[in-house]
């Protein structure tokens, strides 16, 4: 019963939302809006679960003595931002905004920018013409890279046209196939959940 009931609720809600998606009746719209409001509330609780999970994992790590400085910084940051926001608000000149704009945003941008260094290193160490297929991939990658550079004298319109052809023909054909596959996969999984065949979301298959 403790599995049947959630499955039944999930199935009924799924079918209801599916039907509401295609209906323009005022009653359907009202029910749809109410369901969407509840969705927002569930999202807030999901955030709470995430925060508790993060805290538990890192407190456990601190107790076990692994990576203590990093975990302390992570936990402090997570606690400090909401605390500062609650005490001084999130207005334009608040400490929260200052922390966001001068600490969090630059740090995140820096981490993202570090990717460029790893790409440079990886391209030197790993991007080899080991086979015919790898050579084709290498050639295409270099062509696209060069076409996106736009350095005068290096990137002619022929290069751009060639790169566009690669993107809009062989590459697009492959991506379309992948997207259709993803779509069919999502559809199948959704149907399996609604019909109660897929039960992993309940914590197991039995």
């Amino acid at each position: 019963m403790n599995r049947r009931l959630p499955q039944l609720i999930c199935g009924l809600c799924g079918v209801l939302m599916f039907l509401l998606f295609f209906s323009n009746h005022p009653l359907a719209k009202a029910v749809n809006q109410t369901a969407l409001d509840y969705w927002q509330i569930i999202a807030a609780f999901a955030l709470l679960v995430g925060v508790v999970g993060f805290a538990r994992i890192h407190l456990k790590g601190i107790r076990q003595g692994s990576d203590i400085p990093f975990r302390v910084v992570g936990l402090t940051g997570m606690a400090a931002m909401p605390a500062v926001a609650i005490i001084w608000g999130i207005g334009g000149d608040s400490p929260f905004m200052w922390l966001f704009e001068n600490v969090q945003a630059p740090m995140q941008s820096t981490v993202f920018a570090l990717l460029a260094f790893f790409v440079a290193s990886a391209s030197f160490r790993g991007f080899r013409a080991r086979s015919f297929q790898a050579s084709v991939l290498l050639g295409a990658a270099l062509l696209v890279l060069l076409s996106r550079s736009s350095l005068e004298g290096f990137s002619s319109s022929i290069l751009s046209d060639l790169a566009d052809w690669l993107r809009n023909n062989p590459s697009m054909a492959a991506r379309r196939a992948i997207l259709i596959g993803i779509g069919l996969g999502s559809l199948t999984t959704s149907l399996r959940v609604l019909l109660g065949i897929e039960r992993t979301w309940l914590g197991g298959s039995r």
Partner: protein
Amino acid sequence: MISLSTRHWSFLGLFVVVVVAMLSGFRPDIPVTSETRKLFDYIDSLPSGSVLVVSFDHEASALPEIRPLAQAVVRHAFRKGHRLIGLALMAEGTVIGYRLMEQTAREFDRTYGRDYVYLGFKPQNIATMLSMGESFSQTFPQDYFGAPYDQLDLMKGVNDYRQVAAVISITDGNMPTYWIEYAGARFGVRICSAMTAVMMTQFDPYVSSGQLYSLIGGLRGAAEYERLLAVGGGGARGMLAQSASHIYIIVLVIIGNVLYFRTGRKGRGTV
């Protein structure tokens, strides 16, 4: 003396290349692609006063690439006298989006509430997109500052997507997919996007099918847009560093392959 490995030399080389390129002051000549021109022409062709939704669906990590793009698009919209509704479907984009709209609005002497409104962040992107199709006021009963919907002049004439010329999703992820599926397909609103270069190829099939009206991407897209606007900006500046680093990476790939073949393909994996 610290001994540097191959990896460290390649890091150092990239750093030097980017610094030298930025200091050189060289301005690359950037031809405008049809993709960028399509969005520019569309915004240009709308009658003054049209309402556009600009959704800041990105995080702070993508700012160096996203900010020039967003600024160029918002500048263009304000310059043409359009009215903008800003919102964010990712929490971190909220402040970033508001700051950008506020600064750009000041450049063009636009008034909050009449020329632009910022609705702020709403969790659960799909629910929000669907809900806006039913009613903006029920989805966002107040703006970012807590002002009621009916106190905002701009919003008085906007009930749902039917009053909106287009939604422009400024993103570093796959949020346009949801805009296309839940706002475009369900309610028929026109979806455009400005995104990080790495995400662009994922959306080519949507552009090709017309589900995504137009797409501009990366620093290159920003630089092209700035050229069309005839203004300078972060796009053109950033393109210099990007172009130099691309050339550097191409040179590294070539050197790596030459060494690979010279060693008779024995040194597989590392050089």
